[in-house]
């Protein structure tokens, strides 16, 4: 990377979430997939292990050759919590609900669609993940009922 001008730095990941804390990662393509409406994980091209969140490197076989796959079908709601307080940068979104979905081969951490009332949630509920555009050209994903 030496000698690359700053303008060429690939910091697509800065656009992820309400507030981003990471700009540069070797899985920056995640953002391009989100922009095209897909939530995607990686699969190790050498040993076939699947990863979500996506990884650039396989700890099982040490390969860094990865292919992308879309998260499809539905996951089951493992648990959730509705926050009455938020950290800096999130206060205006309160209350919102963070959650975890189990897809079997992997799990996805994220947020539940704010239009879904908490009373309708239950552990084991079938949900799907959907790419979402946020204000200010930012990108994320939310969980909706399957």
């Amino acid at each position, binding site marked *: 990377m030496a000698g690359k001008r700053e303008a060429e730095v690939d910091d697509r*990941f800065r656009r*992820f*979430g*309400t*507030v*981003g*804390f*990471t700009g540069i*990662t070797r899985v920056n393509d995640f953002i391009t997939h989100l922009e095209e409406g897909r939530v995607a994980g990686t699969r190790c091209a050498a040993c076939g292990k699947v990863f*979500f*969140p996506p990884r650039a490197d396989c700890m099982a076989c040490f390969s860094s050759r990865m292919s992308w796959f879309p998260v499809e079908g539905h996951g089951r709601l*493992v*648990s*959730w*919590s*509705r*926050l*009455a*307080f*938020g*950290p*800096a*940068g*999130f206060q205006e*979104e309160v209350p*919102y609900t*963070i*959650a*975890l979905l189990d897809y079997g081969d*992997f*799990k*996805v*951490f*994220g*947020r539940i669609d704010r239009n879904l009332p*908490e009373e309708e949630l*239950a*552990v*084991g509920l079938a949900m799907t993940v959907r790419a979402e555009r946020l204000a200010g050209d930012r990108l*994320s994903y939310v969980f909706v009922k399957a």
Partner: protein
Amino acid sequence: MRRVAVVGVGQSEFVRAYPGSIRELAFEGFREAMQDGGLTPADIDASIVCSAPEYDRQRSPAGVIAEYLGLNPQPTFYVETLCSSSTSGVRLAWSLIAAGLHDVIAVIGFQKMSEISSAESQERMGRGADIQWESPFGTMMPAYYAMYARAHMAAYGTTLEDLALIRVKSSVYGKLNEKAVYRKEVTLPQLSDPQDRMAGPVASPLRVGDCCANADGSSCIVLAAEEKARALRKKPVWVLGAGAASAPVNLAGRDLFTGLSAAREAARQAYRMAGVGPGEIDVAEVHDCFTIAELMAYEDLGFAAPGEGRELIRSRATYREGKIPVNVDGGLLSKGHPIGATGGSQVRTIVLQLRGEAGPMQVKDPRIGLVHNIGGVGLYGNVLIFGTD
């Protein structure tokens, strides 16, 4: 390997905002441990300083603290595993002494959480997890433990009242603990009264009363090799077992949501090393940063089978007079949680209990005590077992 004992313990009062600098705060716990053990700085061969660095302005705090405590030119260094930093320090001190590199080590834990502004604190709260894949959703520590609480309730029928009972127990002993930040009684009706501050929502299903408070504080644990320990004034309290483990930061990487896998693994190691089982523990300090955390600890440590932790609190088995007294100093819920000082404070309580010096909180004739100290949301787990001769 040499046997290792705790020979001196100390802690500052835990307070909302300490009116002094971090070195002065660290001195408070250190002085008490030195006086407790009849020690001077010249007796200390090395120091290990523990805190969570996101609350510190001072870079590399070990240096300034060792200087202020009179611990130059002995080696000093810094250890960090979030909320379990100081038990990581104790475990490391044990290994350095057991191996013969040093004879006497002071483990100094401190945290001045009021060192940074509340705006800075709000910002740091958002970075307490996986900053690449979780923090962009606006996560906070209580919400993660809340997710464990929800999963535990769904799997086993644990109720909000079970969690409230843990807070009520905590307050009974917090009232007795002169070093605790929260010394008021908390009652069961308070936690179900929507008008009461204690019942206010934080992260569903957890309420204000389910959460511990930030605090400023310091602790100090001095460990020594057997020969030294026997020559000192206090009855030695031996380190019998020291287990430690880790788990994925990101919840997506985990498989267990009704307990903490790192705690279970650390407990397995500690019991094996000590050659004792859960039934032989006479008194325990567990990491009750949230009420659900204490309930899961009952199960992760084997005091109850998975899903049956609630029976221990319903039957008052974890009260001082019960079968397995837990957090009879008020725990984090009442003492407050000055991150880097917390584990040392837990060790201090167990050492005082095993010496018979715990005053109004004293359990009857304990011989074996356990400390369970967790960093992050089960990211790091340390379990230490102590015993007398």
